[in-house]
């Protein structure tokens, strides 16, 4: 079977984000860039399926500038087979991302598309659901367990929803988005890194795909939220209870 996994280049989650002087984006100097953590979980899940189902091919796809090669190489070093980079200088909104991915999926014809549930930069949590709709495929978001059917024609997915865990079954092809507890991603091994250099990384441009990526949503401005300032330290549990009761009046 073939699994397509999406990979987004994002600032490291521990980065302190600052808005740039033009107010249109963030300061990217000295930012460490990583694979979106949820995408890393998606890659790991694809690799685990590959280890179980012989003949499985794992194809990575990213959309962005040439610099995204770095994250794709990391994914290849983890064990993916090849990668596609769709080049664009624009920052695409989720629906445009889904349209680009739809074209890629039309060409690749994967059985499963694995994605992170959200990218930790724009925090939209939309692209996977949109892609499933555009393809007319079923979706299983927020996955914490993926069980492939014996015939590899269906999948059972346990999903992290409000108040518990929901399990849904669906035929393949399907779009699955990974939540935190799905797995713990592996690190790339040294031999993996060596091998990754020789793996195929194909570049195409958004223009080549002939997709309409014109924005429907425009960012008008970016602001820094008001900073919450700390209060004071209390010396004891007794003092804490006393201030919460008499001063803050919350208990």
């Amino acid at each position, binding site marked *: 079977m073939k699994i397509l996994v999406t990979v987004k280049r994002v600032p490291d989650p*521990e980065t*302190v*984000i600052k808005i740039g002087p033009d107010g249109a984006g*963030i300061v990217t100097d000295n930012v460490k860039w990583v694979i979106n953590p949820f995408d890393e979980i998606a890659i790991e899940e694809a690799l685990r399926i590959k280890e179980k189902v012989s003949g499985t091919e794992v194809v990575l796809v990213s959309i962005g500038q040439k610099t995204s090669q770095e994250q794709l190489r990391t994914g290849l070093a983890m064990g993916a087979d090849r990668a596609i980079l769709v080049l664009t200088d624009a920052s695409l909104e*989720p*629906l445009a991302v889904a349209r680009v991915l739809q074209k890629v999926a039309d060409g690749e014809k994967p059985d499963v598309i694995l994605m992170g*549930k959200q990218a*930790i930069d*724009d*925090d939209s*949590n*939309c692209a996977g*659901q*949109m*892609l*499933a*709709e*555009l393809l007319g*495929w*079923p*979706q299983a*978001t927020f996955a914490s367990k993926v069980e492939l059917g014996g015939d590899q024609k269906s999948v*059972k997915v346990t*999903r992290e*929803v*409000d*108040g*518990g*865990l*929901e*399990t*849904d*079954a*669906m035929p393949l092809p399907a779009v699955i988005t990974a939540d*935190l*507890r799905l797995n713990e991603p592996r690190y790339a091994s040294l031999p993996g890194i060596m091998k990754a250099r020789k793996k195929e990384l194909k570049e195409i441009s958004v223009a080549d795909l002939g997709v309409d990526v014109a*924005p*429907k*949503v425009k*960012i*008008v*401005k*970016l*602001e*820094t*939220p008001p900073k*919450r*300032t*700390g*209060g*004071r*330290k209390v010396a004891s*549990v*007794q003092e*804490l*209870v006393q201030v*919460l*009761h008499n001063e803050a009046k*919350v*208990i």
Partner: protein
Amino acid sequence: MGNVLVVAEHQHGKFPKTTLAGLAAGKQLAGLVGGKCIGVVLGQGVDALANELAEYGVDVVAVDDAKLAHYLADAYTNALAELVKQKGADAVVATATAMGKDLLPRLAARLGAGMASDVTGIVDASTFKRLMWAGNVIATVKVEATPRVVSVRATAFDAAAKDGAKGTVETAALGGGETKVQFVEFAETKSDRPVLTEASIVVSGGRGLKNGENFGTYLEPLCDALGAAMGASRAAVDAGFVPNDLQVGQTGKVVAPTLYIAVGISGAIQHLAGMKDSKVIVAINKDEEAPIFQIADYGLVADLFKAVPELTEEVKKLKGA
């Protein structure tokens, strides 16, 4: 044109507070658009719910169908897309719960709509505020195409009240249509404590708790003494101490209770994104350099394994007095 549809999620025959926050956002948007706010209740046997929703002063459409008994993204998308056409809707609003997050992007793609997700403020009929980069940036975004699809953050809107004249209730003859997904089961997390997103007091534990058992031994008695919901940091979920359902943060739940007590939580950026709008924040941590103290109203530098049982006893004394 100009109507705003609000998808009213229900659980156990009730509308949770999160739904009422979404309804308030829908009413506000309808006012700005100059149209009507219409509540939509989807499910099986939802007459009573539809009638209750109308008491919030909105007209209600009930979509009653066996195929909608369990929420499934594709079936709900079919029904809602049809309803958007029938009602000439300009916008569809729902709260960004697990269901809202799953459903609205799919609907937006079906409609070719512009979408703003997890919105924290409505500026005008087409302009919204939302947070990016773990709450470190507030973006003002203009959704230029209609229809617009908007998911809203529950903590950013006050729950709608039962006011105004009771709205009308109609039943739409729309099926769920084709669905490729089969609902298998729902394993509910049973708890007598308040729901995390509704509680006025939340006590959260972090990696400092050391293991899952300690959540039961130390945190649960404090939660019970305070009538609080229990939460956790991503680090505690990552370490397998507690289920992900308890996670507070950028990639978990966003809460804004009156009192938030962070126990053994260092205060990573992604955790703060989920709780920094709480009214009063208390931090208990043995590391006085922990970043959580920079935003806590009251900080106690202490060993949680001593301080938490003591706090539980003090709270019990206070409540007993």
